[in-house]
């Protein structure tokens, strides 16, 4: 029996489920929107046992953790302000511990822990250690240093370190626009000291590469966005009128090797990885999304990733 942890609304999960049905693979699906009662997670020197939502987890042979995490705090406790915040924090540590427990006993693909601890700087450091090219980067609280970095590159960009900003109160609404170019004007408007800003050299690209990684396999796609002003900095600023050209790509073997050692290092068995292929002919690692979408990539490249994922559970 396979356990799926995902959102009710996740199209990719629905597509994989169809293939599980096709192959006659048994599964249970727990949705992250629902309250999932924790019957018990019991630990002693002699034994350990876990039952969630009346499912004895020892009957589960493998887990596909596609999105989000399970909720074990009853809905009735969701509106208690600071108390709820506290309960959620406790719940968060519980969920992570359960993941660690399951990981040590069975095949567990995907990870909530990796998703929340998706620290871009750590990944840059690891990627560099594995021999991958990374963009020149700076994190600074000082205007002087930022100007220095700005002046030593022809153009620079900025993005968030971990969380895209999304603040909505009665008088302000701030939303992340993803990656953006840093202009003279923008820098002029800054104070001498500020909260840490993450900036990178702007890399002139021939195309971008989105890699979906799953159990030591790479499904890669080239994205040609250069002709289109709207998507030059960040291809996620989708141009829905005329979509960017997306075609399958085979990463060179040495890059795949380096990527494998990278995923081993950060203990990632699935996720999306972004690269740039620069006009000066280098593959440059940008970032990882441990629970990235693959539906778009699978369709454009005719990879049938949904089926490949289902097949992965056939053997267990």
């Amino acid at each position, binding site marked *: 029996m396979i356990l799926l942890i995902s959102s009710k609304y996740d199209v990719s999960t629905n597509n994989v489920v169809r293939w599980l049905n096709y192959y006659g693979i048994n599964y249970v699906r727990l949705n992250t929107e629902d309250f999932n009662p924790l019957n018990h997670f019991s630990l002693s020197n002699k034994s350990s046992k876990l039952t969630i939502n009346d499912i004895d987890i020892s009957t589960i042979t493998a887990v596909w953790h596609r999105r989000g995490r399970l909720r074990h705090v009853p809905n009735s406790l969701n509106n208690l302000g600071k108390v709820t915040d506290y309960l959620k924090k406790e719940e968060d540590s519980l969920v992570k511990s359960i993941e660690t427990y399951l990981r040590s006993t069975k095949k567990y693909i995907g990870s909530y822990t990796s998703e929340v601890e998706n620290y871009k700087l750590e990944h840059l450091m690891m990627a560099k250690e594995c021999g991958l090219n990374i963009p020149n980067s700076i994190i600074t609280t000082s205007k002087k240093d930022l100007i220095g970095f700005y002046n030593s590159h022809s153009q620079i960009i900025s993005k968030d370190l971990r969380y895209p900003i999304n603040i909505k109160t009665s008088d302000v609404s701030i939303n992340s626009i993803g990656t953006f170019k840093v202009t003279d004007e923008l820098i002029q408007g800054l104070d001498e000291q500020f909260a840490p800003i993450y900036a990178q050299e702007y890399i002139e690209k021939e195309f971008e590469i989105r890699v979906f990684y799953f159990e030591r396999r790479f499904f890669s796609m080239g994205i040609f966005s250069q002709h289109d002003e709207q998507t030059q900095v960040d291809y996620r600023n989708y141009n829905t009128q005329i979509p960017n050209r997306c075609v399958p790509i085979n990463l060179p073997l040495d890059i795949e090797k380096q990527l494998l050692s990278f995923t081993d290092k950060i203990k990632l068995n699935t996720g999306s990885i972004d690269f740039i292929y620069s006009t000066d002919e280098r593959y440059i690692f940008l970032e990882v999304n441990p629970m990235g979408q693959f539906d778009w990539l699978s369709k*454009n490249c005719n990879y049938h990733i949904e089926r490949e994922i289902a097949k992965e559970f056939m053997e267990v």
Partner: protein
Amino acid sequence: MKSNIPFKLFVNCVLVKGANRSTICDLQRNDVRVIPNDLHDLLAENEGKTIDEIKKQYGNEFDEIIDEYFQFLYYNEFIFFSKQVDIFPKLSMEWADSTIINNCILDIDENSNYNILNVLQQLNDLQCRYLEIRNFKSAKIEVISNVLKFLKESESSIQSVEILLPYFNGIELWIASTQEKYVRLHFVRVFKSPFNKNIAPKGDHKLHVMFTKQDYQNELCCGKINQSFFSANMLAFTESVNFNSCLNKKLSIDRNGNIKNCPSMQYGFGSVASTKLKSVVTKNDFTKVWNISKDKISICKDCEFRHICTDCRAYLENPNDHLSKPLKCGYNPYTSEWSDWSKNPLKKEAISFYNLQAVTEKP
């Protein structure tokens, strides 16, 4: 344009060569361009070379026309320039689908008495995803409502329902209330309507409604090949390369309750009252038509539209040849001309074979 860097076609812009001309089928942007066979050959033979090299190959005699071709290709983003042409593999032409039966047509008329809910249950076991219910002559709204209600309550594998029915007084009200209740209803086509009208889906409503003055008396109305039905997308194209673009993974029940590939086809596989669908769909006799791809059909296999075109195996130009071209296609790929199929003197015999006179004589 970079004339000294190798060019490559984006792999989702697929070249299809016909007898007289070719197409570029843009599977990402659902676009089709007709191109001369000369350009097809130029691209097929020279991909990976630079424009300068190609010009030189022709002794610089055709520079102007080569430039013109490449401007057209580059402007429409069918090609790009890169020194890394080797890392871009071919597009896989594999078509895969997780259902046993993907789509189903149920015909009903005033005399139909097969158990439709039982059929729906069986379709669920076959993971069927798309359902089309066709009412010729009189509208059976009770049956339709029962079907929709059943689908809503049963968590069926059927995701999307399409309905064909004749106009009646108060039909607009009926559609409005039905669309509120059933989100899986995606398309309603009303025929013999006093007016023509097209209501596109908007907002939360996924329902598309089309009123047409045309009359659909029976299943003989089906099978027309028309440019407006062409579609260039990855799913349809790869399916057409490998399988029949109408019948693949299709199952039908005609108005008399007979199990068929398509209601218009002569051959049946028993009555649904006494035969389990599952036992039919695993029979080679039933599935063999699924494999009749356009590349196997005479004339179609020389047509530049073959993989974006629909097909019909029920009405054939030569009724005695199961690989004959669809009767209701007016295109001639050898002359690149469209004409009215029903007026073609060469098709007269086939038209009378299928008793299609009544249909063809309609305006």
